[in-house]
């Protein structure tokens, strides 16, 4: 049986412009290296961070990313939360559909990052905001 998940290292990065998404990617890369992810897994985690960070900026009108190294006693991983106080998502199932987009994107941000990560959780309230939390274990 695995123990409780502990957070080893956490940092918060504000997302207000497209350069901030680049900063999130770079910080996620640093943490992914520290966890010891393979190059392919680093690339997956950083790509997911880019997709979700862009969502926070474009759909949530900005917010912040909280990235951390997690440890459950057996293995380590990386956890990322993206929060915004934007308009929220009315139909989550629709938003999770491959190819569905409310903006100018490809509609792969949510569904694609879910595929790239091991854990995915989305909570959203119309008029309040959206939080997407994802994790990948090594």
């Amino acid at each position, binding site marked *: 049986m695995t123990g409780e998940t502990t957070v080893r290292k956490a940092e918060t990065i504000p997302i207000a412009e497209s350069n901030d998404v680049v900063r999130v*990617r770079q910080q996620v*890369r640093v943490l992914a290296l520290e966890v010891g992810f393979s190059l*392919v897994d680093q690339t997956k985690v950083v790509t997911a961070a880019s997709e979700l960070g862009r969502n926070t900026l474009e759909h949530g009108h900005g917010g912040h990313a909280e990235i951390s190294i997690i440890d459950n006693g057996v293995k380590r991983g990386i956890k990322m939360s993206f929060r915004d106080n934007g308009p929220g998502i009315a139909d989550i199932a629709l938003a999770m559909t491959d190819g569905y987009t409310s903006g100018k994107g490809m509609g*792969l*941000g949510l569904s694609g990052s879910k595929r790239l990560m091991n854990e995915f959780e989305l909570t959203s309230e119309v008029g309040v905001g959206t939080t997407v939390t994802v994790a990948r274990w090594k």
Partner: protein
Amino acid sequence: MERIPILRIGTFLLVTIQVDMHDQLALTLQEDLTSMIARVSAGGVLIDISSLEIVDSFIGRTLANIASMARVLDATTVVVGMQPAVAITLVELGMSLPGIRTALNVESGMQYLRDTLADREDEDDWRDYSPQG
């Protein structure tokens, strides 16, 4: 303003993306390339992405847009040097970049552009030599 340089070699345009591109920079590149293709009547565009550590859906879409716009302007685009980890991630993300011609490195990409251009010139030659009534 921050820009990615475009080199012109004969009838080809060459772009090497060496920075971690934010979205606006990708859009600027798309505009710059499209207007330059038209201005210099470029026959081919080579985009080297070997330094890119990730290609997400936005960058992927920008590359696809560049290729489509170039095609409409009578130019061929080839994207070269994608890292294997990037390719794996891109496909898992759900993007297979349909309509984009790729090559493993700059050399084979240039060869592809030269061959495409040569084929087109052959077709033009046929048209020139067609019987005149």
